[in-house]
Every structure is written in C-alpha cells, then in structure tokens.
C-alpha cells in the first residue's frame, strides 16, 4: 500500500486516539438531553503560537474547545474571525465522542445556542400553537 515500504505503527498510547477530521470536525453535537446544539465547525488548540519555533521537549498543546458560529464561514471561504467572535464549547463539557459528540451540559446554558433561543423567543413562540406538543 505504501510505496516507501511499510511504516511502523506509532508508539502505543494510554488513552483513546481521536483524529480531528475523522472523529470531531463536522460531527453533530448533542446536549445532555440529546437535543442537537450545533455541529463542530472547528477546534481550538491552546499552547501553540503560530510561527514561533517549538523548543524541544515542549509540552504538547491541548484541545480546549470545539468552535462554532462564524468560524464555519471562514473555514470554507478563508479568513479568520476575531477571537472574541468565536463561539466555544469547552472540551471539559464534552461527555463522549462517538458518531455524535455528546455534552454533559444542557444547551440552554451554552453560547452556541443563542441564535436558536433568539429565533424561538422573538418569532416561533409568538406564532399561535408554537408551544403545542405534536405528540
């Protein structure tokens, strides 16, 4: 399969291995009640400065947050939103990563849900029957 001959597998690691593209990016994020919150549009890494040489033995950067909001647009069309406009879902709130990313908190408490809340409160809740349970 590999023209340069088979490569050896990387040294074994103690924890679970996640590839960002394969397991995190573009996955559906569900809150603690199983309600969709958003999609993981990008990932924030802490402890890494672009263009600054990494001294040997430096500790590995860590994944601090999943990002959503305007960052989707810039990921597709290029550019970069200012750091203040990033909407973060902190890694510490993530409960599990499977075919979806499950959070341990409820959507109502997250910044990522503000558009949904706005549309709900300003538009949908004001239409008669908006709170009607279809079941």
């Amino acid at each position, binding site marked *: 399969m590999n023209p340069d001959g088979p490569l050896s597998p990387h040294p074994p690691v103690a924890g679970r291995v996640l590839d960002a593209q394969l397991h995190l990016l573009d996955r559906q994020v569900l809150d603690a009640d199983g309600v969709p*919150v958003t*999609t993981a*549009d990008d990932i924030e890494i802490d402890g890494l400065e672009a263009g600054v040489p990494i001294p040997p033995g430096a500790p590995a950067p860590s994944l601090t947050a999943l990002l959503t909001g305007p960052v989707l647009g810039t990921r*597709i069309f290029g550019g970069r939103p200012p750091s203040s406009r990033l909407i973060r879902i902190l890694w510490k709130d993530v409960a599990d990563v499977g075919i979806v990313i499950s959070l341990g908190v409820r959507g109502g408490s997250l910044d990522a849900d503000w558009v*949904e809340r706005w549309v709900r409160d300003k*538009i*949908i809740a004001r239409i008669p029957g908006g709170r*009607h349970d279809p*079941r």
Partner: protein
Amino acid sequence: MKKLLGLALGVLTAIGGFVDIGDLVTNAVVGSRFGLSLVWVVLVGVVGICLFANMSGRVAAASGRATFEVIRERLGARAGLANLGASFFINLMTVTAELGGIALALQLASSVQYLLWIPVAVVAVWIVIWRVRFAIMENVAGLLGLCLVVFAVALFLLKPDWANLAGQALAPAVPGSETGAGYWYYAVALFGAAMTPYEVFFFSSGAVEEGWSVKDLGQARSNVLVGFPLGGLLSVSIAACAAVVLLPAGVAVTSLSQVVLPVAEGGGKLALAFVIVGILAATFGAALETTLSSGYTLAQFFGWSWGKFRRPVQAARFHLSMILCLVVGVGVLATGVDPVLVTEYSVVFSAIALPLTYLPVLIVANDPQYMGHHVNKRPVNVLAMIYLVIILAASVAAIPLMIITGAGS
C-alpha cells in the same frame, strides 16, 4: 393482526407517496410523446430508489443519523456546503412545483384561476407542518394518494391494444416525430423524477422522526420493496393512459389539465373525481415532504435541533426555515411562471444532483462505526456501484441534453 395492519398501512402510504407532481407530469409528457418506449427507465429508477431509500433508512435506524448529517460529516464542511446549496435549491424548486400542483388540481376541480388557490395551498401546507402529527400526516396523504390507482382502472376501461402497448414497452424505439436527443433527455428526466433526492432525505429523517430502531428495519424494507414498485406501476399507468389516448390524437402534454383527459375518457366523471382527489393528495403530500426536507437538510447541515416530534419552540430555526421556504415558493409562483415548467426543470436538476446524495449514503452504509453489523452486504454493494455509474452518467448527460433539445421542447 396489528402487525399486518401496520404493514398494509406502510405499503399503501408508500404507493400513494411515491407519485408526486414530477412523476405525474413527466410520465404524462413522456407517454403522450414517446408512448411506452421509456418504461424501462421507470423500472431502473424504481429499483434505484428502493435500493437507496432502503439503505438510508438502514443508516438512520442503525446509527440514529439522518442523511444530511452523514453527508456533512463525510464530505466535510466545504463539499458539504456545495452539496447543501445544490440540494436545497432543487428542493426549493420542487416545493414550488408541488405548491403549484396543488393549486392546479384545485383549479381543475373548480375552474377558479390557480393563482387564487396558491395562498390556500400554502397556508394549508404550513398548518399541517406546524400542527399535525408526523404519522397522521404521512398516512392521510398516502392513503388519499391511492386514488391515483384510477389511472390503472381507466387504462383497463379504455380497452387498449395490449399487444401494441407491450411491444412499445419491450422493444423501445424512438418515435418518428421525436429526436434521439429528446428521447434521452426525457429518459434522464424520468430517472430524476423516480429517484428525486428529497425522497431519501425525507425517508431517512422520517425514520428518525418515528424513532426507528434496528428492529423496525424489516417492516421498513417491506414498505419500500412492495410500496415503491407498486408506485412505479402507477407511474407507468399514467404514461400508458397518455400513450393510448393522447399520443394518437397528436396531443403533447404541456399542462396538468391534459393529464386527466384520458381518465375522463375511460371512466367518466366519477373517475375524474377520483383522479383530482388523488392528484391533490399526491401533490399535497409531496409539498409537505419537500418542505420538511428543506428544513431537514438545513438543520442537519448546521446541527440545529429539528423534527416534527419536537414542539416548534424546541426546533425554532427548523420551523423558521420552512416558513421562509414556503414564502419563497409562493413568491416564485406569484410571478406567474408555469408550475408545469418548474416541475419539468426540477426533475432534470434532480437528476444532475443525484450523485451528491447517493455517494455519501453508500459510503456510510459500509462503515461499521455507524452501522455495527448492519453494513451493506456484498450483493447490495455490487448493485449500488452499478447504480452509481448510471447515476453519474445521467448526471453528466443532463445539461448537454438540455441544451441540445432546448429543454425537451
């Protein structure tokens, strides 16, 4: 007994739900111009939609993920967005066509200008989406859509030359009055009408709406495998009616009012009443499905909360986006554009976009991470790869054919 009833219900709704304005118009146009020489395309299309609807249903049941979540996850943000753009645009076109179809059917019943019926149609569609339970919505529209069986009844009453019809179907040839390019253009259109992607979006999202688990797969499979072919038979009888009455008279179908003439000739006013109710139910049901599909695709791409099983306030952006889609559809129709023309374009554009939907579904249906041990079996994969080639060919050929034939005119 209850299980048998459920099965019957599922099959019946699948039959009634198979036909929409695209199938009605395209089959009648084809029947009136090419006789039954394109029946094989309906056959190919029906097998294809059975294959992929079944596959997307299996993905949804095994993983709980609907088709567009899977598309975004597999294709990534950029290709996923391009896919969303194309799928959403075609969906919107189909919503417009179906709304127009409802209005045209009401005009047939009342002779009141169809433009006046459009507000009625759109409000009715919205109220059902806003209030009515998913299962009730599906079953009522599907069952009333069964009235379209009158096309098959009318065909018998017309006492056609069966040998001649069979000859047209079994030894396809381009009629002298038509060109080869026109023949293949309508082959692509028929294929697109049978395999419209919204059916897969809707089918897989519906599986999530109704909370299917792997246990329900058997029933889902029989619904599809029995219901869709019978729906395809309905499509063929629409074409056959047109081939028996309109083709010899030199009528090429350009409007919905022509589609029902053979039924009236075969079965009189009673049959006409049935066919109008059937068209109304079929277009209304399809308008619901396509509007919901617009909401589903958007919500699943962006990760919004969605579903009719939730209260509207719990899926606010989903409901808002559907309202906006309906508003856009009405806006397009208000310009006076011919709904039948919109329909004809929508099925061809559907054909163009087919690979975008079906490729990711096929890939995920093979991924044990999603599917566990419900991954595709080998024969399914072989068939699916053959279909992928057909789908690609239809997709690539669609635009050149459209240019050569001046969109089939």
